[in-house]
């Protein structure tokens, strides 16, 4: 079972880099909560529970290092959100970054949106490599010169300086969400974006911070009647009037903003029929969709529920076209997973650039990849033990019962504290970023 996923037959995933501390005692603030490549793949952003954003930039490929692609090094880091206190509810508002989304690059600066539970911020990351020297009214230290001493006039000149990368908050979009923001998504019109919380979805204009349009509201008049919540939302990659949102009941609704100002009535409703005889206490919980992502082509979308990943054709609402089991062996462990709350873990999923492969995380620092064309799948592990430069990753296997083969790991030995919830795939190349608690792993394919 060779690693032929995501590329041709000669394909192998190799370790490239790992970022973060090695210490056993992980500070809560260091737990990575989101990972996202920008549109070109040149930049890779992470957000953590401490409200900080770290952006890595890929170095230019040097002629000497032909065997590997450019490495990602720290480009900028800043404190995006701080903890706040909601006075009305006496609740703490966590500074944890729930999502980062990059805007498409339109000039020399880079822009990203970062969101915690309540507030979205637009950050501008820009480079400064020149400095003006030779001011008339102040000297090089910045102190004002004595006006009576100035006898000549000069034109300041721009001199090169060491590169400085500055991050500044350009917009703060606040006070529009009563519940916790789970998703943000930039629209293909590059002017608007949506933000979704448990019960509502708002549409914003990137330039306007003091108001937003509410486009979906599923809050019942009587909260006792609440049966489902919004779990994720995304704008269509090409059709700026289309977006989807998923629910805790395993359904996806596609909405068209041209149809009405309030999109409470969906245009399409995606749900896989369930066999009523197999229904159990856990059915609804494990059907809850934790992530929804459109394919780059815009023809398909992928949903992640607790045990599987499903690919849906937007033209077919009654069932997914592909279903991939991520860790089916956990079905016989649901009782303990409910007791330790793991059953509520929210795994994300992602497409590769060509939509031929999908990736999602699991437990024990395992992550899974599925090749849609060959139907092959592979389980890999993000581990410091396998972190020599360009070391090939060995496929991992979980043994479900009976005899455990060498190199296999039994279900009961899995570490459920080592969860890979966030992964990202470079938009064009076979480079992936995997967040394992407080460490960020970068893997690349081996160039043959």
């Amino acid at each position: 079972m060779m690693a032929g996923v995501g590329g041709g037959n000669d394909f192998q995933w190799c370790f490239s880099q790992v970022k973060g501390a090695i210490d056993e005692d992980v500070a809560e603030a260091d737990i990575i909560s989101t990972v996202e490549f920008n549109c070109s793949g040149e930049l890779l952003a992470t957000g953590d529970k401490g409200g900080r954003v770290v952006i890595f930039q890929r170095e230019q490929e040097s002629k000497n290092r032909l065997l590997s692609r450019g490495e990602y090094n720290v480009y900028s880091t800043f404190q995006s959100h701080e903890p706040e206190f909601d006075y009305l509810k006496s609740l703490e508002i966590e500074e944890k970054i729930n999502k980062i989304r990059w805007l498409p690059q339109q000039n020399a600066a880079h822009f990203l949106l970062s969101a915690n539970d309540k507030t979205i911020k637009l950050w501008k990351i820009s480079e400064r490599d020149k400095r003006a020297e030779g001011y008339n009214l102040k000297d090089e230290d910045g102190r004002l010169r004595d006006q009576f001493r100035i006898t000549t006039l000069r034109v300041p000149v721009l001199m090169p300086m060491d590169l400085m990368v500055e991050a500044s908050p350009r917009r703060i979009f606040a006070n529009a969400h009563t519940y916790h923001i789970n998703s943000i998504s930039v629209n293909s019109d590059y002017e608007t974006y949506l933000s979704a919380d448990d019960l509502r979805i708002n549409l914003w204009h990137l330039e306007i911070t003091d108001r937003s349009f509410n486009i979906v509201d599923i809050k019942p008049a009587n909260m006792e009647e609440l049966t489902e919540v919004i779990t994720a939302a995304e704008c269509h990659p090409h059709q700026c009037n289309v977006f989807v949102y998923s629910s805790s009941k395993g359904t996806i609704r596609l909405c068209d903003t041209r149809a009405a100002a309030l999109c409470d009535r969906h245009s399409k409703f995606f749900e896989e029929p369930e066999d009523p005889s197999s229904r159990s206490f856990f059915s609804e919980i494990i059907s809850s969709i934790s992530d929804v992502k459109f394919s780059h082509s815009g023809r398909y979308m992928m949903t992640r529920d607790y045990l599987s990943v499903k690919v849906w054709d937007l033209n077919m609402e009654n069932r997914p076209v592909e279903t991939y089991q991520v860790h089916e062996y956990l079905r016989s462990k649901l009782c303990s997973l409910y007791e330790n709350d793991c059953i509520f873990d929210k795994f994300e999923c992602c497409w590769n650039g060509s939509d031929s492969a999908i990736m999602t995380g699991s437990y024990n620092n395992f992550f899974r990849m599925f090749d849609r064309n060959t139907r092959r799948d592979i389980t890999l592990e993000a581990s410091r033990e396998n972190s020599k430069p360009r070391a090939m990753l060995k496929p991992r296997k979980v043994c479900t019962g009976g005899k455990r083969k060498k190199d296999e790991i039994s279900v009961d030995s899995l570490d459920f504290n080592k969860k890979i919830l966030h992964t990202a795939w470079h938009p064009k190349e076979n480079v992936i970023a995997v967040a394992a608690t407080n460490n960020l792993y970068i893997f690349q394919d081996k160039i043959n």
Partner: protein
Amino acid sequence: MSGGVEASTEEQQEMQDAVVSPEKTEEAKLKARYPHLGTKPGGSDLLRKRLQKGQKYFDSGDYNMAKAKMKNKQLPTAAAEKTEITGDHIPTPQDLPQRKQSLVASKLAV
């Protein structure tokens, strides 16, 4: 004789159920441990708990006290060396705890 045959077919049925649906076995386990578990599991209680995630404090004073305690724990050991202000002496600026801790950079950015 006949009782034995009946029992074994029941057992067989149970075994079949377990094989066919590991989920149902797990459900039975859970119900055995928590007999009072509600009949509508995905319903309002679970969802409402989800909507109200986040630690609740009595008021903003309680919140700021909790934050201060956490920050004091994270301060470097220099703070621990300072003697406690008991009210016996007039505190100097060096004695007072810092109002705002300097932000700690992410370890990913090292």
